[in-house]
């Protein structure tokens, strides 16, 4: 089969809020369960203002570095599926309750894969929220980034969790990723 042309993206628009969020969307594990942390942050525009109509999704491994391939992200009946969705609040803030992903191999850097949607953003953006760790210094992908931008991909430990702010534009603009076509 010849390569097919991709279907283009379009903005998520202003009205996804009655359709995409659902109860439990951002709770990958029950709050207060063993190892539960908050992964949270604010999505900012180029003027430093919060974006109240953004949607953030994460995909992650479990603590042992295995990415689950099990259903249940909507049902949320106690199975860890490694995927979640959080709309931002009026202050541009999103919050997930989850666990920290483990690296695929010991000593490697671990990250949450992050997708960002917003009104005003014409296509989705992809990025990574790395866990702060000494392993980051040896990560080949991070090493290939300009030094002054690397920190935009590293979550910051705070009380009970990890903070990962996302800047769509501006001096602190987050590094967003492109991926080669799948082979």
């Amino acid at each position, binding site marked *: 089969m010849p390569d097919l*042309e991709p279907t283009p993206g379009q903005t998520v628009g202003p009205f996804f809020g*009655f359709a995409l969020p659902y109860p439990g969307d951002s709770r990958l594990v029950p709050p207060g369960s063993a190892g539960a942390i908050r992964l949270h942050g604010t999505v900012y525009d180029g003027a430093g203002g919060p974006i109240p109509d953004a949607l953030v999704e994460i*995909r992650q491994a479990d603590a042992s570095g295995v990415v689950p391939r099990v259903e249940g992200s909507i049902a949320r009946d106690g199975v860890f599926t490694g995927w979640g969705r959080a709309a931002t609040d009026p202050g541009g803030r999103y919050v997930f309750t989850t666990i920290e992903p483990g690296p695929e191999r010991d000593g490697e850097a671990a990250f949450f894969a992050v997708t960002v949607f917003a009104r005003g*953003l014409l296509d989705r953006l992809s990025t990574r929220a790395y866990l702060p760790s000494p392993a980051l210094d040896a990560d080949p992908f991070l090493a290939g980034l300009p030094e002054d931008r690397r920190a935009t991909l590293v979550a910051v430990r705070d009380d009970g969790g990890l903070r990962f702010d996302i800047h769509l534009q501006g001096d602190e603009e987050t590094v967003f990723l492109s991926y080669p076509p799948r082979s």
Partner: protein
Amino acid sequence: MTSSTDVSAVPADEPLDQAQITREIEEIAATARPGEAQPLLDYPPYRSSLLRHPTKALCPADPEAAELVAPVFGHSDVAPVEADLTIQGTGDPIGERMVVTGQVLDGEGRPVRGQLVEIWQANAAGRYMHKRDQHPAPLDPHFAGTGRCLTDDEGRYRFVTVKPGPYPWRNHHNAWRPAHIHFSLFGTDFTERLVTQMYFPGDPLFPLDPIYQSITDPRARDRLLATYDHGLSEHEWQLGYRWDIVLTGNTSTPMERADA
């Protein structure tokens, strides 16, 4: 022109009109790189994009770990009735009943099986069931405008709904969106995640709409058009539209407009 169309040309106290937006759309189209498959993220005619697009080039990354594995959904997550948007109320919604169906494929033409498809849309009068939609068109108590389904073993999705109406928005004076249905899709890899909009053929609003025109390549834009398929229409019941979706995970490159 420069990479940013001059959006300050219109004095702030004068309403921004369609002629100005159309001029900007045409200027960008005249210099756009042929074959650009995705919308330009830096697209000033869509005013809400001005502060919400990255200005730096996307960084190429080899997908790793969680990026290689799309989330999995199943029958515990989605009930079959969620694919019929016309049975969510206590009565029939007003509007043109229609079925929309198609295949979700990856770039090599392989079906994306058992995967979640979510849609949302305005009702037949062009009004969303959303508190922020203030368009003075009637809400329909029998139409919420949201649906979900799982693709089958051939990657096919199928929704029954009513045709959405066009609606006004505040990008500029007298701005109207062409009728559309929002689609949210997952592929086989997490990198193939796609949110987009499906349009209907022949809409007179297409040349005026900066969201649709942000895809500067006409062939790429056409890939968002459903096709009327009489074979899907049902006698004395509903009309049928077909729309296939290809997920490749390719991403547009914000710095690569031809003049940048």
